[in-house]
């Protein structure tokens, strides 16, 4: 016997005000709960981790071994906080020692879309193979789609050693 289907009449005796109150309440609560979940989720996914910035300075090269006036690509070992882990990884930079012993260190990626560029001695420019951006010896854009000069690392000279620090904020 199918007991629950014995009565087929359906009453909808809700007054219109009551009905609209119910509907508003349902939408209101659902929106509130959605917001209470979405906001923390967005913060959780979008905010940067609160990791203390430590060990940013790295001993990278011997100053005396760098040529004067010609950029040189150096590679060095640095530690990086990678999520819940600290990894030690190889990093590179294009370093220019000027005659007055001032040093500039360029980050090794093209400012267009991040390809590795290199120093082209004959033309005396940095050239990027990807979309033919070219940069002057002090990083200014000479040609191509690159939107800004080459990014630089902060540098410190400690005796005869070159220390490389975090990226300089770009101008």
């Amino acid at each position, binding site marked *: 016997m*199918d*007991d*629950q*289907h*014995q*009565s*087929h*009449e*359906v*009453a*909808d005796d*809700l007054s219109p005000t009551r*009905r609209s109150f*119910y*509907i508003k*309440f*349902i939408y209101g*609560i*659902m929106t*509130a*709960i959605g917001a*209470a*979940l979405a906001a*923390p*989720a967005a*913060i*959780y*996914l979008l*905010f940067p*981790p*609160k*990791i*203390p910035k*430590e*060990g940013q*300075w*790295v*001993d990278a090269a011997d100053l005396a071994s760098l040529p004067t006036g010609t950029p040189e690509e150096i590679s*060095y*070992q*640095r*530690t990086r*906080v990678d*999520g*819940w*882990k*600290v990894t*030690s990884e190889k990093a590179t930079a294009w370093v220019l020692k000027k005659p007055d012993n001032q040093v500039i260190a360029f980050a090794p990626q093209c400012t267009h879309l991040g390809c590795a560029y290199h120093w082209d001695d004959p033309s005396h420019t940095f050239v990027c193979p990807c979309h033919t951006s070219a940069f002057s010896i002090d990083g200014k854009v000479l040609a191509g789609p690159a939107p800004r000069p080459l990014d630089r690392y902060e540098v410190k000279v400690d005796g005869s050693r070159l*220390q490389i620090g975090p990226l300089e904020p770009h101008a």
Partner: protein
Amino acid sequence: MHNKIIEWLEHRTGIQTAIKNFLYEDIPASSGWHQVIGSMAVFFFIIQVFTGGLLAFNYAPTPGEAYNSVKYIMTELTGGSLIRGLHHWGASMMLIIVVLHMLQVFLYGSYKKPREATWMMGVVLLLITLAFGLTGYLLPWDNRAYWGTVVTTQIAAQAPLAGPYLTRLLGGEGSVGNVTFSRFYALHTVLLPPFTMILIGIHIYLVRKHGVTPAVNDTAPRRKFFPEQVFKDTVGVSIAFLILFMMAVFARVPLGRLADPTDTNFIPRPEWYFLFLFQTLKFFKGPLEAIGSVVLPGVAVLTLFLIPFIDRAPLVRLGKRTFAFTFAALALIAWTGLTTAAIVTTPKTTEADETAPGAESLQAWQQLTPEELQGLAYFQKEKCKACHPGAGKRGIGPDLTQMIPAHRDAAWMIPHFKNPAQVVPGSSMPPVQLDDAGLNALSAFVLKLTPQNEQGLLSAPDFAVQGALIYQSKHCDACHQIAGAGKKIGPPLDGVGQHRDRAWLEKHFVDPKSTSPGSMMPPYKFTPQEMDAICKYLLQLPKAGG
């Protein structure tokens, strides 16, 4: 425009009709507040999927790294502890809600013909909820997770016939490790969620097929599910959500120390909803153990599953279901009794003690093992403080009380002690000149440092440090145990001062057999200073677990 899109969607997919059919289902006039719990369970499942997915975005599913990544979520991501709180407390609330839902269905007799399959599907969903709890418990990979799972896999191993296979399937053969971890993770995140969705779908389909159970003699005109009943469901959901959110904000979700398979001091304890089972096990000793761990729960689950066939009498009014009420009340009393007994009889874990306010009467250094005190001695001798001046202070080296999780690991620290510049390029720290045992001790001590206990640890008196050094150099731990470290060939020394005095100890060291006939301990010759230090050190040792 808006209407056009809806029209198009409706024409191509029929979505509008489908939603209308779903919402405008007829329900009996007698439906009401008691039926909101099922919707709440679905809601909580959605919360678990959502927060679980978010956690997975920052979680490394391998032992060791899992712990570090959970710590990272808790301490370094904004909102991370809230998300974990929602997931953790959501799991508990989900179980409570599922049980309440079953209780309601049981008391109202809604499992009776033709709804037997709906009920049985519900029992399966209850078991799945428990499986979620069980597998999720391991994933933070702290001591409670590890030890809880050791116990679980061993219970599974006792199952008659299937035991060995179950153990192998859970990867728990030999020990809980990588394999068990991966399998629990796969179950928890890959297999169970879609499986649950399908079963919930079938469950809801069956509810729809047979309609909501009307009360006896409910002949009043039927009503629509929307909006009145949906309103009631929403009220239920919002209250439960508010409670959950409050818990996630205000109740700290514990994360103990990294799982330590050698920690013999840790008392495993399952999640609260498994405590009754844990307690039941205590009543069955030796060969009977399988009765408590497998047979009884098996019979209980089977009974639950077959309830619609056991009780086939026609439906009567709620007030007349005396037997059902008695049965439910007895089950509730038994559950509460067993759970309370489990809470009362299980000693507090040392983990909980570390953060408990009551632990303050003990000095921080009194809770160190001899090895950690030995490490403290080296910490002072090597003048580590010169470059690591302490909590919140800047020195040449970083603050050791707040190292990033990845460095809070002996496997990272020891190579770093041996050759600092190689592990941290550019580090100006000199290599630490100690043998391997010394390096182990030093890293054990450094791992203990927190901003809260640093002062207390470094204020350890000289006799304690010297006493511990002697204890370690004579390898007393080869036979004795202090604070859970060392072997138990001889008596453990925790709290030895409560039944021995200085004179007894001195005599005992010179000639062990004079004080303890039959003792295997060799005599020890100490200088007066050494004797003073070791005796004072031993006599102050706190009682175990205190």
